[in-house]
């Protein structure tokens, strides 16, 4: 056998260049765009769509006009600069009306109030959203609702302060009685004491202090609210109120107590079964029947309450999904450790169930924020329909439609997209399983 062997290579050959079809851009194109007849067709169609969109949008954006007083003037400028038949965006409308989109008809010299309330909101949210901040900041979060209310609506500083004192009363009564009467009874008494404070003492006390020490801001009426100010006020309030309410409803739906379960199921299914618009009409038309005669409270507040109910029902279902996904052993382990119901929920069940339901909760929040535009139908000035209608009914801007909707839509997109990205980040951060 060995004598047949004529040549044995004893050196390694240098590696060859890969064939041109298997390297660099060509390989990427072949694999990702043209890997088969169907893919090639899809890519070509995709390119055609992109080209068509670009050919329509890019000139339109390039021919933008920022300085004009009316749509007609915009078109004249475009025709003069780029020739007859050219199309262009007329952002002059946004330049003239941006403040209405952001603040509605809020008095111009008081824009600092909603603006500071908006930025303080992030300070208040920070300790909730990121847990590596000083824990003391949570006190600011607790005070923030009263502060924001005072900044936005104005009036005497003492009404929100006295209202917040109601919580102090509740906490005080609870801690005083807790050792003597136990948790459930003292919590009930604390709640009754606080309710008494709010219903009976609050009004006279606030006006008494105000007459001695008048500190306050000019008050602003609810019908002057509008634009994204209104959306954010309704959205943020309803979001923060609907989470605890949804949590309670979900627990009620899972409860062993027949009556509690029936009431929760009835509430959730009713709210989820009807469109939000009918609930908003309930706020504007029907509450006058259901409330005692002569009560007439703020339309924004009424809308917030019903939007909160609406969101709470959806969140309850999301959390119920999280609770159902939890293995039975977790509940049994909590029982075996001798924890009572609330301890088990707080320490074992909720941290896991809430983690599972984060994506659902955030998408309910996004849906809720988008749904705040529907308040236009009960006469409030939402950015999409309310303000855009005001702009479009101005003789100067009659016939403009792409620009206002694009502008409002882009802001909505940024907020909602940001929320969904935050939820993805949170999901990754809280992920504890090993995959």
């Amino acid at each position, binding site marked *: 056998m060995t004598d047949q062997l004529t040549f044995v290579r004893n050196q390694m050959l240098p590696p060859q260049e890969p064939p041109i079809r298997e390297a660099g851009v060509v390989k990427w194109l072949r694999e990702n765009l043209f890997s088969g007849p169907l893919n090639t067709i899809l890519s070509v169609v995709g390119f055609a769509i992109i080209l068509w969109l670009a050919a329509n949008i890019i000139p339109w954006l390039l021919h933008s006009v920022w300085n004009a007083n009316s749509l007609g003037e915009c078109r004249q400028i475009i025709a003069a600069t780029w020739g007859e038949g050219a199309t262009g965006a007329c952002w002059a409308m946004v330049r003239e009306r941006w403040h209405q989109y952001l603040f509605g008809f809020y008095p111009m010299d008081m824009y600092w109030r909603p603006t500071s309330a908006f930025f303080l909101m992030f300070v208040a949210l920070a300790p909730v959203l990121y847990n590596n901040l000083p824990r003391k900041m949570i006190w600011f979060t607790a005070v923030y609702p009263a502060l924001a209310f005072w900044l936005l609506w104005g009036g005497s500083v003492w009404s929100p302060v006295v209202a917040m004192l109601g919580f102090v009363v509740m906490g005080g009564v609870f801690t005083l009685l807790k050792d003597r009467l136990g948790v459930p009874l003292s919590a009930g008494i604390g709640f009754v004491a606080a309710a008494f404070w709010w219903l009976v003492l609050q009004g006279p006390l606030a006006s008494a202090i105000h007459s001695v020490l008048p500190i306050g801001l000019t008050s602003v009426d609810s019908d002057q609210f509008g634009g994204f100010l209104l959306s954010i006020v309704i959205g943020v309030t309803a979001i923060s109120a609907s989470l605890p309410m949804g949590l309670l409803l979900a627990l009620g739906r899972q409860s062993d107590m027949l009556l509690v379960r029936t009431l929760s199921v009835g509430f959730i299914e009713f709210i989820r*079964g009807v469109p939000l618009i009918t609930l908003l009409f309930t706020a504007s038309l029907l509450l006058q029947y259901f409330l005692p005669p002569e009560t007439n409270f703020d339309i924004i507040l009424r809308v917030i309450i019903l939007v909160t109910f609406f969101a709470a029902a959806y969140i309850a279902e999301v959390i119920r999904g999280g609770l159902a996904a939890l293995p039975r052993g977790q509940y049994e382990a909590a029982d075996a450790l001798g924890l009572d119901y609330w301890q088990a929920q707080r320490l074992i069940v909720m941290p896991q169930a809430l983690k599972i339901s984060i994506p659902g909760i955030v998408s309910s929040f996004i849906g809720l924020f988008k749904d705040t535009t529907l308040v236009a139908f009960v006469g409030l000035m939402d950015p*999409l329909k309310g303000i855009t209608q005001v702009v479009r009914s101005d003789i100067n801007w009659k016939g403009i439609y792409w620009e206002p909707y694009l502008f409002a839509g882009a802001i909505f997109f940024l907020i909602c997209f940001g929320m969904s990205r935050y939820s993805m980040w949170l999901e990754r951060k809280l992920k504890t399983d090993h995959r």
Partner: protein
Amino acid sequence: MSLVQDVPKDSFRLSMLVYDTRYRSITIQVIVLILFMLFLSWLVNNTIQNLAAKDRTFDFGFLGMRAGYDINQTLISYTNDSTHFRAAMIGLLNTLLSAVIGCAIATVLGVIVGVLRLSKNWLVSRLMTVYVEVFRNVPVLLWILLSATILSEATPTPADYRVTEAMIAAGEAPKASMLLDDSVAITTRGINIPAPLVERGLPRLELGPISINSNMLAFLIVLGASLYGWQMLRAHAKRVQEATGVRPTTWWKSLAIVVLPTLALLIAMGFHLEYPQLTRFNFNGGIELLHSFTALTVALSLYTAAFIAEIVRAGIMAISRGQSEAAAALGIRPGRTMSLVILPQALRVIVPPLISQYLNLTKNTSLAIAVSYMDLRGTLGGITLNQTGKELECMLLMMGIYLCISLTISALMNAFNRAVKLKER
């Protein structure tokens, strides 16, 4: 256990109602019941007082009274002499029409987009991601308003379609021309499409208050019968295949069974299309689709399709790779892997959220208010409410109807879930 039995029975104290877990739940339920009854009686009492103060009664008698207003899209016969009840039915049918067509378009579009988002084609999957993110993160009201505005403001007026003698002489073309071989005209007023008509039609079927188009009925019956025949043919082919191992060729028989009877019926009835014609001021003939209907349905389907795409994508991704690898190991071809292995499992994940999207779309049709489409809210909750002043009754009735639709859909969903549930242990 023995400890509990050792407790003497006469040691019941009042405080045990709060502290003993055996009695606590009863205490809580009694308190909840009392509070709930108090709340309910407070509501009812307020309502009675308020109704009395406004000198109104609570009755549904107004439903039998003459409505007195016109509706621009009626699926069943209606004049302004009809009752408010009939008007509400018209509204309900318009709501359902928009919902059904919207769901159909959204499903087709959503499935295509969802599958394409998973495609290996880089460009197409990015395009689809952009579509999904843009449509999901902007309020649906924007899409409805934008499409309504574009349809009514960026389209040519009927006059733009006119061709005059002078224009022919000068060799000018009209400003706008009809699409698809002069069959579809989009104007500021609406979209005119050809109408299917029959020459030798059957008489209408009068069943009490309901009048049925018997041509449509005959068409549906024949189509249903041929589809049933097709199913029988396929079942027969399957039996032959299982007995002999050879599947008989069925495609031309299937085609004949499905197409021929329907075609014969259409020819027998003298089926033809009526094209819209430009008359003095507007297009006449054919079917005129209202812009409000088109805008609402298209916007809702585009919006919902983005959600459905995500559901389909999640459903397909939820099937572990092991399933398709196992199918490949068994020698099943890729196409059959999809239809026999992946899809049946993915459908179990996809269908429940899909139906809840249908539910959302149906509820969102109430946004018709933005484009003045005469849906249930436009008739019963709109003009009827304003004319009769029966706010409480109209709103309660409207909520009740929406609730019935929702509960029906979710009952169907629960039935489906039970049917496809994995039976473990």
